[in-house]
């Protein structure tokens, strides 16, 4: 099992290198010249002489593979260069906005779990019942409503009509409610469906029948065994969706003027601030890859059968 974990951890390195290679290649194809962009941002009139000097400073005169190696080394030290716009280190800019985004992400994950676990579980227990209909409604419409629109619907209803929550900004828990719910909706849709299907599947398993014949209390069977087994695909879903959640924060932050780093990313896109874009995209890839790994490991913990069975296949 230890070997398996180490193997999995080592396996993410080539994938991440591929991701850096891809971003490096794309940025290299971009028509933006870093030296020129830097000078424009610093309000220095670009002459051929200064441009050549800056290019040398940035290492742009070196062969491509050396440039790539340099960029990988820098990235591994969390050095993403300086922003063309603010002229400050990208990492400082990004990390100062991180906490707002993490707050939003956590809020939405908690909301999603708080809604989808009871709804999905009860829906799976009573197929065709009232809660089951609710779960189908949630999982269908949650996946089909554009989240930016849903956010505005919430604003129209809860902020403008009822005046319960603030329209935008950050601060108290009240500010967090609407953005979290908006961001949670697609997650609720997915988790409810996953959990419902998995509860239904598990109820048919022989171990449930065995537990019943042994005379275990129904509450215990459902609460301890079925729920625990059924929750495992949900954990996968959670990990697989961290990347999507990151995309979601970009849109939700735009709707609610949430001062996180998703909004910073959009600003960077408009300004073509390439170092910031690169940092953001690579961070997303890292989060995506690492969360998939963590999910696999958690799953191994929940369901030890995977570790003995799945090693060779993966």
């Amino acid at each position, binding site marked *: 099992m230890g070997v398996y974990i180490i193997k999995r951890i080592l396996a993410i390195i080539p994938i991440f290198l591929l991701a850096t290679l891809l971003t490096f290649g794309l940025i290299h194809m971009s028509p933006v010249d870093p030296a020129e962009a830097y000078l424009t941002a610093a309000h220095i009139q670009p002459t051929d002489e200064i441009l050549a000097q800056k290019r040398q400073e940035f290492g742009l005169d070196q062969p491509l593979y050396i440039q790539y190696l340099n960029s990988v080394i820098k990235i591994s030290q969390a050095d993403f260069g300086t922003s063309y716009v603010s002229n400050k280190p990208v990492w400082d800019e990004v990390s100062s906005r991180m906490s707002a985004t993490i707050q939003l992400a956590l809020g939405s994950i908690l909301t999603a779990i708080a809604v989808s676990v009871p709804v999905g579980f009860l829906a799976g227990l009573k197929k065709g019942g009232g809660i089951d209909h609710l779960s189908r409604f949630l999982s269908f419409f949650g996946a089909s*409503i*554009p989240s930016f*629109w849903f956010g505005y619907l919430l604003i129209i209803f809860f902020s403008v009509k009822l005046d319960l929550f603030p329209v935008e900004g950050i601060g108290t828990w009240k500010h967090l409610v609407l953005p979290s719910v908006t961001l949670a909706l697609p997650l609720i849709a997915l988790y409810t469906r996953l959990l419902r299907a998995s509860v239904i599947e598990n109820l048919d398993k022989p171990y449930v029948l065995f537990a019943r014949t042994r005379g275990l209390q129904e509450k215990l069977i459902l609460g301890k065994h079925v729920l625990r087994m059924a929750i495992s695909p949900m954990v996968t879903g959670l990990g697989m969706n961290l990347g999507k959640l990151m995309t979601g924060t970009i849109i939700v932050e735009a709707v609610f003027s949430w001062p996180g780093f998703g909004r910073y990313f959009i600003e960077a896109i408009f300004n073509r601030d390439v170092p910031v874009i690169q940092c953001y995209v690579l961070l997303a890839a890292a989060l995506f890859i690492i969360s998939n790994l963590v999910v696999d490991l958690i799953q191994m913990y929940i369901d030890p059968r995977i570790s003995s069975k799945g090693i060779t296949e993966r």
Partner: protein
Amino acid sequence: MTIKIHARLKSRKVMILCSIIIGMLILITLLAPWLAPHDPTLVNLAHKLKPPSWEYPLGTDHLGRCTLSRLLYAARMSLGYATLIFISALTIGLVVGTLSGYKGGWVDQLLMRICDGIMAFPSLLLVLGLVGIFGHGLKQVILALIFVQWVYYARIIRGMVLSLREQTYIAAARISGSSQWTIIRKHIIPNVLPPLAVMGALEMGWAIMDISAMSFLGLGVQPPTPEWGAMIHEGKSYIRSHPELMIYPGLMIMLVVVTFNLFGEALSERYGVKRNS
């Protein structure tokens, strides 16, 4: 047994209903110039923010443009570009997937590593990154969406080709002297395409949502061209006084996405194709 038949009938009903809605949407996109009561980009400040009337069935926006006309023309944008993205991504995926699955070896290795690289990113985020690097605008958004989409088709097609390659009738065709090209064209592609049509229905909904999300962020379709996401973006300044300006386009997006999702689900249930996402 009765439950199964019941479910089948229901899925048939859903399919018919969805086909009708999709048919109507196609008609709208084709006939928008005749259906729309006004020019969707005609600014008339004397008529701004008017309530619904006979002349303007859904009222007018902040520049006095007819909301209904804009909604109808926007359908053209969304459906047209979603189709373009789907067909382009499918074509690239078909070429890469077939090549990769049929040739194997280093070609397969190289192509699949490229796919791994692209799939290491959350897809919409990569689209945003690409748009940031290459500049924003509709053309870049469309190209970026194609760039992240083809990978999924390539992967699935490769898998299908791998299993098809082992079928006896392919071996028979090879033994009887058919060329590689003939086998791919006559035996492989016709078998790969039908399940992809099902996937296409599901992907259309996502493509429409992605385009409108990008336009909402101000990166895709640029004003004054009508597009649902862009309309929501424009309407947000009037959220207190005229929320309907952003409610209508959102309803349209939802209607279209729900229809394509239901249609795709019904199709895949009927033809036993699993969605791979």
